[in-house]
């Protein structure tokens, strides 16, 4: 067995045992001295659908940024897909992120490009052959219900449509994990539900979905695993849980 194969096998074993995401005593302190995460531990397994909830300042966004490897933990370990993010070198980050699909509250689409180009861009980054891009992108747009709008500029779309484009872009490379930061934050209830149903569909196909949200109604209605954060700590982690009303 080659070294690479051995490494992959070890990684697979780790994913089986500790999950696709594993945090061990993670502390994150910002340079100004504020403690965003105060030693959290967490395991998320393959195929799970997890809500991360909590009020502003609870540490949700910091957790999201750690998983994206935008930030590095001050101490503790963050493993994603068997890779230790605290030891990851800068040049490896791009490749790591290609295993993640990311969706933001503010969509973050490339404004000067049309719908097709925005989705195709994610495939171009991983150097997918042009023929495959031409096949994959329309299929993905059809899945999110935007097949007819592939030529439209992103500023011609509604918020819900823009989020669908972002979702299509996040999924076109078949990521193992989908991270969504307040995906319904800028949407009306109807569009919010449509996006959540899409996320559920994606999860049913085997993708691990982690959604950071404030949306109590959606969290309570979907009966998924809910991780509740407060002041940089996980205060509850329940399968089929509900959004705890702090009042």
């Amino acid at each position, binding site marked *: 067995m080659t070294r690479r194969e051995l490494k992959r096998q070890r990684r697979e074993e780790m994913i089986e045992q500790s999950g696709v995401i594993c945090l061990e005593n993670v502390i994150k302190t910002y340079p100004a001295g504020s403690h965003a995460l105060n030693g959290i531990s967490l395991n998320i397994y393959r195929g799970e659908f997890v809500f991360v909830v909590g009020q502003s300042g609870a540490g949700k966004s910091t957790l999201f940024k750690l998983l994206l490897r935008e930030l590095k933990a001050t101490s503790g370990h963050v493993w994603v897909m068997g890779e230790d993010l605290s030891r990851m070198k*800068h040049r490896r980050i*791009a490749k*790591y992120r290609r295993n993640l699909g990311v969706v933001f509250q503010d969509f973050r689409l490339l404004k000067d490009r049309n719908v097709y180009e925005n989705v195709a861009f994610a495939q171009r*980054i*991983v150097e997918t052959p042009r023929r495959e891009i031409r096949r994959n992108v329309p299929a993905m747009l059809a899945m999110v219900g935007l097949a007819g709008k592939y030529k439209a500029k992103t500023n011609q779309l509604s918020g819900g449509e823009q989020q669908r484009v972002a979702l299509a872009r996040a999924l076109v490379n078949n990521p193992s994990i989908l991270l969504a930061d307040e995906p319904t934050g800028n949407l009306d209830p109807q569009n919010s539900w449509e996006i959540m149903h899409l996320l559920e569909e994606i999860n049913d196909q085997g993708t691990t979905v982690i959604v950071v949200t404030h949306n109590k109604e959606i969290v309570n209605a979907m009966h998924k695993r809910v991780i509740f954060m407060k002041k940089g700590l996980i205060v509850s982690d329940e399968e089929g849980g509900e959004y705890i009303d702090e009042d």
Partner: protein
Amino acid sequence: MKISTFFYTIKQGIANIFHNKWYSLASIATISACLFLFGIFYALVSNFQSILQNLEEKLCVTVFFEEDMDYDSMQEIGRMIRARDEVSEARFVTEDQVWESVKQDWFGDRMEELEEAYPENPMKGEANFEVFLKDPEMQESLVAYLESLPGVRLVNKSMMTAQTLVGVNRMISFISAGIILILLVVSVFLISNTVTMGISVRKEEINIMKYIGATDFFVRVPFVLEGILIGLVGAVIPVFLLYNIYDGVLRFVTERFQVLDWLLKFKPSAEIFRFLTPVSLCVGVGIGFLGSFITVRKHLRV
């Protein structure tokens, strides 16, 4: 990197210029303005130095001999003079040539009267060597040598002119080097500022690319290419303008001021632009490349 990715990044670099046309125009205008100023200054300085050089070449020391010395002995001294390192040319002027020149210079329209008054050449014993120097700074040492030669009666020199020329030339070299340096520093500052502004606007775009897994190289290439193209266009415009302006001014001055032809020895366009064109292109492309490379780097740590 796949060939298709390579072409894609190039296409994006070109597309970026048109997508951000105002920023591109501002950058091109800044680079053009800086290089235009640099070009004007270079053309002025190099012409001024050319005129000075011309004057320096005209600067000569005249060596007169004892009255009873024969031409063969004078030629022998001439050979010794020509062998000196300081000398670029030593021209022998006979007594008759001296008289002819005096008549021409001073009595042009009364030549006949003069010939009647002086049937014999009054410039006997005035045969001399006009010695031209390679460098006016060497005049002092040459004059000392010439005065020490046996048979040399008088050495005519103009220490003042030589020293002034040396001083002015040195001063211009220092000032021009200083101004060119300042211009380049200001250009780099202005251009990198423009690039920074342009890229700050697109910080979000870079962040998005990084979040979805683009490598630094993939993000950087279109920006750097854009910077290079902007730098190139920004350099070509002033070179083209300056070439036409310089050519026009040169033609105008040489036609209108023929009287000063002996003094105003302008450098031909080809000579000026043989230096200015590659330097401007290198500076434009270099600044475009460095400006975008460094500025993009700041935003890649996402």
